[in-house]
């Protein structure tokens, strides 16, 4: 006898336009809404990065039209130093929160988690709808900061107190900063609702035969990420509440005594700026793993499909992701080595930070090791997945430097840090997003994306992002300080002589920055190919079959796009592990999870089943 889905008993397919496309409780619609919001945020964030890069190397360049967005920040279109910082703050905030958490996690996760476990929807569809709209409100509040008096805040996405807690400490630090704090607090609530759904659905709504170990790796990644997020956002929310109170209610959680801003004594006293840092980074470090783990899961899922053979160890990937999630809560102090906290704690935090390299290395070794002897299929999705491995290695390796407090003494606050986190978050995680899009667009929209444009997009992005972010590390090595709106330090203007293979030339750090800015503009332009491809294919792409990539997991066992209840009223039963590719003795080169075909699988423990 099969389980009655109480869910299906509750909702019939929606009829009205509003119920179908706007206030929908269908996880597929919600997933696409999150994806769309993330896409909007990444385009805004990318434009902001262009403005930043242009200002850094061509400070007197007038951006046409910018003066209408902010006449004080960009008089005549020329960006002022404070406006640079304001653009930088919004760039970071939009990218970290509204792109990296929204797309690989909330976007793809919402769409595919229920399908991959054989469920009809999430456990709490109405909470799910609420979580999106709450996130959307948070987005609107954040963007509103562009349009208020002084503009957006300039304290960075990290919003350190007291700069962020004293309204008079700079332009944008009044209304703009308050809007920022409200937006992020709202975002936290949206994410908490979302995580609640993910965890409950994974635990309770798996179909018959879908044991935890039979879930695909991306499902595992979403599950682990939502566990991390549940506890992390639950700490950021109090931090934002306390910050808002400091700003508007006269409390002083973060503002110490005897501060003098603009020659005036600040009225608050007794608070601790380090308290903000601890609360923020206790959230902030798990947050970066929230940003990368779903991408790692998606990439694992796509890689194994393109390898046409199972990974060397399914369990190792799962346990490594779990280990990373667990360790992520122990390392937050590595953002605070030089913050004035007890120097002994620096050593305490450094150790787990270095140890987290172990599961990360295992992931990379398994991805690469499984490629040995495989039958690699190249398509847009697998290109980005392979590119992810390269970017993850590059970004991870630079982290190794920053994990050591003594080296951090020199590299903290330099472009080396910027290079590191952009490689892992700004490139690797985004590659996961692209890979997922090319892989799953046929399923979500019922149409294939154009492969040629996809490949052009890959090449431009792969080479372009290396050109942008690898040089940041060299700039960091010479001590180029970050978050500067202009480069006025002497040594940056000085050309360094280079002798290479008989060639002699000289390059100054400023010229390196120019190269980076040009690469950034070029790479950004390449992304427009992706957007065009996405939109064009949505309407004009070749209709997609049910299983275009010959995948084994349950999302390929239903139509493209799936019906409103995912499986047409008949929940699948699962008989196999998720990645039965290239099984000897099977009828084809892959066996789907819900296929009743009997195959002999040699499990990891060598047991033949």
């Amino acid at each position, binding site marked *: 006898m099969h389980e*009655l889905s109480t869910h299906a008993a509750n909702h019939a397919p929606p009829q009205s336009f509003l119920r179908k496309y706007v206030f929908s409780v269908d996880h597929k619609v919600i997933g696409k809404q999150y994806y769309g919001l993330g896409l909007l945020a990444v385009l805004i964030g990318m434009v902001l990065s262009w403005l930043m890069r242009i200002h850094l190397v061509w400070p007197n360049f007038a951006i046409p039209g910018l003066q209408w967005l902010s006449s004080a920040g960009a008089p005549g279109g020329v960006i002022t130093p404070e406006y640079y910082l304001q653009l930088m703050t919004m760039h970071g905030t939009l990218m970290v929160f509204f792109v990296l958490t929204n797309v690989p996690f909330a976007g793809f996760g919402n769409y595919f988690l229920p399908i991959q476990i054989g469920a009809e929807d999430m*456990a*709490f569809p109405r909470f799910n709808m609420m979580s999106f709209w709450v996130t959307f409100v948070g987005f609107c509040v954040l963007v509103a900061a562009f349009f208020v008096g002084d503009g957006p805040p300039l304290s960075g996405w990290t919003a350190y107190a007291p700069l962020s807690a004293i309204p008079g400490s700079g332009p944008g630090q009044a209304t703009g900063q308050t809007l920022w704090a409200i937006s992020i607090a709202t975002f936290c609530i949206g994410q908490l609702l979302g*995580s609640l759904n993910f965890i409950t659905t994974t635990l309770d709504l798996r179909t018959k035969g879908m044991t935890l170990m039979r879930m695909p790796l991306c499902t595992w990644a979403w599950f682990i990420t939502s566990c991390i997020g549940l506890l992390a956002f639950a700490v950021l929310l109090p931090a934002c509440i306390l910050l808002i109170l400091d700003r508007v209610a006269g409390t002083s*959680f973060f503002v110490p005594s005897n501060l003098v801003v603009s020659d005036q004594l600040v009225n608050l006293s007794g608070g601790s700026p380090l308290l903000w840092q601890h609360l923020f980074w206790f959230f902030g470090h798990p947050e970066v793993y929230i940003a990368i783990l779903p991408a790692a899961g998606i990439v694992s899922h796509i890689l194994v499909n393109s390898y046409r053979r199972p990974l060397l160890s399914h369990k190792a990937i799962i346990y490594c992701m779990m280990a990373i999630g667990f360790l992520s809560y122990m390392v937050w102090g590595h953002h605070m080595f030089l913050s004035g906290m007890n120097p002994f704690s620096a050593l305490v935090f450094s150790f787990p930070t270095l140890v987290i390299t172990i599961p990360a290395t295992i992931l990379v070794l398994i991805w690469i090791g499984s490629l040995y002897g495989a039958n690699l299929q190249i398509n847009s999705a697998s290109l980005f997945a392979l590119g992810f491995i390269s970017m993850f290695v590059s970004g991870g390796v630079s982290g190794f430097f920053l994990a050591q407090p003594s080296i951090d003494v020199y590299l903290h606050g330099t472009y080396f840090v910027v290079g590191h986190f952009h490689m892992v978050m700004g490139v690797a995680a985004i590659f996961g997003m692209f890979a997922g899009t090319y892989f799953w667009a046929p399923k979500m929209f019922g149409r294939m994306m154009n492969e040629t444009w996809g490949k052009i997009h890959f090449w431009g992005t792969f080479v372009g992002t290396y050109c942008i972010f690898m040089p940041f590390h060299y700039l960091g090595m010479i001590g180029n300080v970050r978050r500067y709106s202009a480069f006025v330090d002497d040594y940056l203007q000085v050309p360094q002589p280079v002798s290479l293979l008989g060639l002699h030339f000289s390059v100054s750090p400023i010229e390196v920055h120019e190269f980076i800015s040009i690469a950034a503009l070029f790479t950004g332009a390449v992304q427009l190919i992706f957007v065009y491809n996405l939109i064009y294919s949505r309407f004009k792409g070749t209709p997609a079959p049910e299983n275009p990539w010959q995948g084994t997991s349950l999302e390929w066992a239903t139509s493209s796009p799936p019906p409103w209840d995912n499986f047409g009223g*008949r*929940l699948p039963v699962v008989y196999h592990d998720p990645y039965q590719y290239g099984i000897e003795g099977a009828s084809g080169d892959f066996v789907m999870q819900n296929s009743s075909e009997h195959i002999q699988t040699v499990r990891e423990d060598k047991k033949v089943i």
Partner: protein
Amino acid sequence: MPHGLFMATTLQAPPTVKLPGPGSLRRVILRDSDAPSTGIWIALAAITMTFAAFTSAMLVRQGSANDWRHFSFPIILYFNTAVLFASSLTLQIGRRRFSRFDTERHGEARPTITALYGTLALGCTFVFAQYAAWQQLRSEGLYLSSAPSSSFFYVFTALHALHVIGGVLGLVYVIRKLHRGVLRTNTFAAASQYWHFMGLLWLYLLVLLRTRI
């Protein structure tokens, strides 16, 4: 390309329940989803983490300067604690009355609803009485920004009261379902787990505030 074969299952149409009359309940054999129970535990984990973060903020703040300024603990809070615990008692009575349907085929919803109304009344009393505690503080000149001790007092009690109001809304939902005669055991379990947790959380806050402010 081998196609996946579904095990043929047809979803049964939701069983038509003939409601014998307002206020009555009839036991319906529906496989209950565990989701509300699981979900509530996860929500409680998040809420615990939030209050843990506020607790550590308070401890750090208390140690970071000399301006803590202790004040006298409002006595009414003990009364409020009793009220909240009593509401958990009435809620448990309601659950016991409801669970009789596990053994009987049908019965009356009225006794359960009455117990729940009692819980609601006590819960609302708690919230109003918390407000009274604030009034007392204000009469002593202690506002949100007066001192870090009073700041945290207001923050903790306000957030807890907000969550209690959330629990009230949950119970209202349960009562509505009972009036209509269709209530899943797991939904009721989830709402009452949440409510009891509010009591436990309050006990924790009581001890924390009593020893610190």
